[in-house]
């Protein structure tokens, strides 16, 4: 099993907690308390290795609080992250600016070249159907262009309907696996292998432990 640390960043109320809960528990609450400080959750997924083997990936997820006042806490959570989900709300124009600011901060502060940044536009359900198109405040093409320029992964999702959420984590998991597999391959050879990769990622897990993740 591989362990990766993932952090969610983005303006308050864009739906970070909702996305995590959709991914981890497959539920959605219309009313969810604002996050104070940060919340921890974890979930495993499976990705495929080149030789068609299943690799279990465990995400340790820190869902941070979006309000400006809590910004100073964020470094504690993204410091050792392998991946960052930067979320904005497609119906709130300013939330994309906040997302861009987070991307900047990550690029400046996180030394890891391999840090995977995924830009996510949430709440697409609100602008589905021709009646609701005017609710959209951020054009998908615009965000996509920005993501490409910055070398980010990008997609639009809905935590409410679940649309696209699993795929985001799946793609992150696959990307992380692909980038790490070189390193992993070396280690793997040392392991008596029963078809499952069971090693720790070189990067520290959530809490910087090097312990086994079983």
């Amino acid at each position, binding site marked *: 099993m591989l362990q990766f640390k993932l952090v969610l960043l983005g303006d*308050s109320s864009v739906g970070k907690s909702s996305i995590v809960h959709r991914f981890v528990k497959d539920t959605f609450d219309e009313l969810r*308390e604002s996050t*104070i400080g940060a919340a*921890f959750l974890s979930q495993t997924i499976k990705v495929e290795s080149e030789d068609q083997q299943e690799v279990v990936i465990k995400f340790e997820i820190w869902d941070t*609080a979006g309000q400006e*006042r809590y910004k100073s806490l964020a470094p504690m959570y993204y410091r050792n992250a392998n991946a960052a989900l930067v979320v904005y709300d497609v119906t709130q124009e300013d939330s994309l600016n906040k997302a861009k600011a987070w991307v900047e901060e990550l690029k400046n502060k996180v030394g890891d070249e391999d840090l995977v940044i995924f830009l996510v536009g949430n709440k697409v359900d609100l602008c589905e159907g021709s009646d609701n198109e005017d609710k959209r405040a951020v054009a998908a093409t615009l965000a996509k262009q920005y993501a490409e320029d910055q070398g980010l992964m990008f997609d639009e999702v809905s935590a409410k309907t679940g649309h696209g959420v699993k795929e985001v984590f799946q793609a992150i998991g696959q990307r992380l696996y692909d980038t790490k597999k070189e390193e992993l391959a070396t280690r793997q050879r040392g392991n008596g292998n029963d078809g499952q990769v069971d090693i720790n990622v070189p990067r520290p897990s959530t*809490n*910087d432990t090097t312990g086994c993740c079983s």
Partner: protein
Amino acid sequence: MKSWKISGSPHKGQAAGGATGGIAARSSSADGNFDAMSKQQAAAISGPRKQHSALQGYSPLRYMPPSRSASNDSNALLKQSRRSSHSNNRPTGGANAGHSASTTSFTTDGSGKYFQDLDEDWSAVIDDYNMPIPVYLNGGSAGTADSLSRASTHSYPQLPNLTGTGSGSRGTPGPAVVPETRTPTEIAQERDVQELNSMMARITKFNALLSSKHILNVKELRQLSWNGIPKPNRPKVWKLLIGYLPANTKRHESFLQRKRKEYRDGITHTFDEQNHQRDIPTWHQIEIDLPRTNPSIPLYQFKSVQHSLQKILYLWAIRHPASGYVQGINDLVTPFYQIFLTEYLPASQIDEVANRDPAMYMSEEQTVQLEADTFWCLTKLLEQITDNYIHGQPGILKQVKNLSQLVKRIDADLYDHFTNEHVEFIQFAFRWMNCLLMREFEMDVVIRMWDTYLAETSQDSSVGGATTGASAGADLSAPTTPAQRTVSTFQTPPSKIRTEATVGASPSSPLSVRSFSATTAVTKTTASGAGSDDASGTRQSSSLNEFHVFVCAAFLIKWSDQLCGMDFQEIITFLQNPPTKDWRESDIEMLLSEAYIWQSLYKDATSHWL
């Protein structure tokens, strides 16, 4: 559940489903049932005790006097008591097993395992080495259930009678019992009567205090409120405790009129587009937070309520630019709002407040009054914790640090375990500080908790006032000193206590504790002798924050046994979602009492805080 109830009682617990504990505690002397013991302890610790229980020879608590190192042993004892009391429902092999287990660990582990007080700076010093350190070992038996009946005169947590039978080391069931001749039903009935009487006595007491024609005795009100405020009195008492209403009752009417007008004017001005440019981001943030404030309580989904709270929060935010609106303040406003709302409901419907739309029973005028009172009380509260919300939230960081240091002292095992698992206190305790534990408990419990918290607030608002106006980043709490707090005033003649201490200090007979029946109490004393009407200066402005840290410590340590068996992920998950859904007032009362005792024992520690 009656909100005025001042302490947990086993038969209440029974009603709530804790049948084993309730019955065991009542009818058998020492059956070694940890559940019973913990209930026993809850009752014993949090409520004043009835004299007759001691006369009957019940000894719900055993008293272990301090030996060589008072601080260390007291620490061990408390910890030990905590450990046994929170071993949830763990059946044990009967009285002897349960009892001797406690005894053994006390005598052997007491100074060795649990104490490594190497940090000189942080030693827990007991002021008076002759002061007995209360111990809750083997809660034992009946008698504590009636703890309610003593209610009236005491206010701060009462330590139960320091009664012991000295039988522990010989393996007989701890508390010796006078044969019980009454049936459990009879006892239960008696207790109900006592409880009712106690409630009446308490309400009478509050009413008497509040009906004073001139200057209210706020100090006494504070003491009385510490153990819970009767529902009908709560709105007024909260306003007094927080320092909103003046002690002089003659001024109440005019004062309220003035404050309500001030609020009304503030709102008019603020919402007049010509005078005031709306702070859009603040407004927006409040707007998106209100629907998700207390989402499980119907009250907060009514548009009328959200509208009121929005005005209150926005006005507060723009008047306090150093802080501004910070998430969590939306939580803190709600107990005030909800309690003051009950003033506008007939007494019989107070319990319905959480379900009814105020728009259906409030006039416009009343709505403004309610908002004004809520606004001012919120302002008063936040004055005392401004550091929590200014840039960088230094108040919270400081409290989190204090908490970790405290836990390191009180429960080194847990602290070490956290270190090994790389659990950082800020990962779970940030929210505890930011929302005063409100997210951890249901509203009823929070409200009961606030009786105590507001009793802990300072009325010296000048300090807070300065803080409010000061610029962000300054060490605003510097001018304050920790509240004076002492374990003192045991009502037993001191000579007796000393006798006990001497006996106990002898290594050869650590368990031979003689019984004495006087009521004992931990009485909180404050720095000043205090005139009756004005508590200013008696409590320092740091006291609410400081007490809160002790409550958090007690709360964390409550789960110590479980936590020590968990890994990082389990710990964080557990602490993010602690099993408090079923908590009742008696549970929070026990927690508050524990916190109070810790604070008494560790008061010197707090001088290093700030």
